[in-house]
């Protein structure tokens, strides 16, 4: 079932449609569809060209440079790479445990990133589709359109994001590409003034995040049939959880649930990830397909990110978000929710959790302490895993005697979701596009499905509602049959 529509028979005779977003530094994504004469979808693929060269580039560089350098990997979640690299390199300086101050400042930075990224995704990138409909006029489908019809929603979205950015600035030293986390700890504590600056707004952020959860939930419930079915496919769920099963986005061990919600792998130490996850290469995509080794490529793939995390944990350790999680779980009526559009609701629950974590961390006097660094017997290898806004992010390094990185392996969130996103694209293609005249609105359905996962490429191509795509329909003989340009 899962690989149906991945490769069509007699491909040469089919008509090819490409949805090809403009290439950006974060990667270049495109969707290709093969249609037969009657317009039936025979093949649907999402290809993403990731900038994998980075792993090579890092080799031969001094290890202490890595947490700063890897922020260049991704223009939209640099903090996640920064922290994952620092975590991976802690053991290299012998910091098997970092100080409470270091851990709390890193957590604060991370939850600030979650907050700003989730706010950006929901309000700027997705709310136009969700509020106005997938086939609404292109001109309206952006944050400016939202501001015109829902000014308070837009305002809260913008300010939530700004608050997250302030948390990052204060913990990392800069709003983008800071240097806060270093192998062994952090290089900067908070001053009382900085803490108070954040405290002044922290409660408001919780209240607004709660509104956002309720908005996402209302949207979902108001069109249940659409939200529950759109692009639906079932898969395993994968994420970090805390030792006691709580949601933890900064640290923990790895857990896998099956599509019916049973825990099938648990308490996998981060350092052992390689024994469990392997990546398959397919000739048609530069992005690899990870899966759980012992389950095999057909059955062992999974989804990551908010939808997986909210359901993979046993509870959320902050009161308001936990109430929302329970409502979300109740929506599934005993089954896990697999609907891609439910990512939005789950994402907002996480944003609320992030706001609550930030608020409670700010009361902690350790943030102001100067016990920032620890060290011990030097190590040569480390794995750092973090739940980035988009899902599980794995950094793995080996460092030679000479302090230069000799090996680097990265598995980024979007890669984990590769099979899942392809699956969603196929479901949507089958359900909405099959046998119909393709229009911009119909093609936007495919993007709506991809966007639900918040892959790296969506931000780059969809800033301010613009997703400039050239869509070309080629006839079986390769000649241009039709052409549409969207969103530019």
């Amino acid at each position, binding site marked *: 079932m899962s690989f149906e529509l991945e490769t069509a028979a007699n491909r040469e005779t089919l008509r090819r449609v490409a949805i090809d977003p403009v290439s950006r530094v974060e990667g270049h994504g495109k969707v290709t569809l093969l249609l037969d004469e009657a317009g039936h979808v025979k093949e649907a693929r999402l290809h993403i060209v990731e900038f994998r060269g980075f792993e090579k580039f890092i080799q*031969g*560089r*001094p290890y*202490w*440079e890595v*947490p*700063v*350098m890897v*922020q*260049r990997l991704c223009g939209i979640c640099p903090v996640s790479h920064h922290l994952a690299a620092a975590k991976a390199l802690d053991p290299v300086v012998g910091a098997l445990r970092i100080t409470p101050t270091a851990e709390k400042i890193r957590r604060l930075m991370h939850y600030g990133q979650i907050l700003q990224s989730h706010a950006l995704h929901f309000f700027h990138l997705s709310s136009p589709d969700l509020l106005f409909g997938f086939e609404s006029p292109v001109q309206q489908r952006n944050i400016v359109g939202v501001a015109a019809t829902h000014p308070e929603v837009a305002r809260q979205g913008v300010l939530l994001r700004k608050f997250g950015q302030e948390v990052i600035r204060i913990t990392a*030293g*800069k709003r983008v*590409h*800071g*240097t*806060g986390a*270093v*192998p062994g700890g952090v*290089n*900067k504590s908070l001053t009382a003034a900085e803490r108070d600056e954040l405290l002044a707004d922290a409660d408001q952020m919780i209240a607004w995040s709660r509104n956002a959860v309720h908005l996402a939930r209302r949207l979902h419930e108001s069109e249940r049939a659409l939200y529950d079915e759109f692009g639906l496919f079932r898969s395993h769920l994968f994420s970090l959880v805390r030792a006691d099963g709580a949601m933890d986005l900064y640290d923990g061990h790895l857990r896998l649930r099956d599509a019916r919600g049973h825990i099938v792998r648990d308490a996998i130490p981060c350092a052992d990830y390689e024994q469990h996850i392997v990546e398959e290469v397919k000739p048609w995509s530069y992005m690899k397909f990870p899966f759980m080794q012992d389950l095999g490529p057909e059955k062992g793939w999974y989804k990551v990110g908010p939808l997986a995390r909210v359901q993979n944990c046993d509870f959320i350790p902050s009161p308001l978000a936990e109430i929302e999680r329970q409502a979300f779980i109740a929506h599934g009526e005993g089954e896990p929710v697999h609907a891609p559009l439910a990512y939005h609701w789950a994402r907002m629950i996480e944003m609320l959790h992030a706001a609550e974590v930030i608020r409670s961390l700010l009361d902690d006097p350790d943030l102001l302490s100067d016990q920032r*660094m620890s060290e011990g017997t030097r190590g040569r290898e480390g794995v750092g895993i973090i739940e980035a806004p988009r899902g599980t992010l794995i950094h793995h390094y080996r460092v*030679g005697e*000479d*302090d*230069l990185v000799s090996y680097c392996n990265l598995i980024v969130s979007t890669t984990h979701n590769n099979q899942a996103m392809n699956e969603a694209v196929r479901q949507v293609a089958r359900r909405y596009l099959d046998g119909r005249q393709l229009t911009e609105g119909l093609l936007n359905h495919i993007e709506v499905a991809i966007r639900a996962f918040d892959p790296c490429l969506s931000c780059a191509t969809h800033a301010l509602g613009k997703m400039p795509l050239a869509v070309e329909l080629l006839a079986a003989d390769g000649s241009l049959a039709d052409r549409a340009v969207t969103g530019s």
Partner: protein
Amino acid sequence: MTRQFLLDGQPVPFEDGQSILEAARQAGHYIPSLCWHKDFPAHGSCKLCIVKAAGRHVSACATPAREGWEVESNTPEMNGERRGLLQMLFVEGNHFCPSCEKSGNCELQALGYEYEMLSPRFRHFYPERPVDASHPDVLLDFNRCIFCELCVRASRDVDGKAVFALTGRGIDKHLVVNAESGRLADTDFSKDDLAAHICPVGVILHKGPGFAVPIGERDYDRESIRQKKLRDEEASS
């Protein structure tokens, strides 16, 4: 009677044998420099100190001051020359400031800011220059070398070791380590040498500290290179 010249219209006193640059700095006027160091003879290679003296372009570090000269330094013309020189230095090596640990303490970067270098202007050369991490305490990242020879001079003239040398010409010019293997570990270089502390950019780096001092709290985050150099001058006199 003290003698003097005019720097951008202001009188600057000087002693016999003093260069324009030294006299200017002593009098509290900033002329930029990269390869010049007060403890070494002038080197005259970077040309950042370029001024117009008696109508001619000269290196202020290598040109003795003369009574009655009119010297132009802080003018749009001279500063434009300097910006062009900086732009050339930036494309000649691999200067990737965002992930360079010297960022904020680097004189080349600070001068880029001081002279409002907003674009690379020229095409990058992207030379291949592998790092030398063989030494236990010090890393050499040749990517950022600007060939000022301060390390060469410090090692030879002060440390008495001659660990470094420049070799090759023109575009092939590069810094080498004086050892059969070419590796720093195979020399008697020590992290306490003057040469280990003199590089104005990010080539000769002590292993470990990296980003321990946050960006934002570094030398040239606090003050401009102009202010810092003048303050250093005052402190040493």
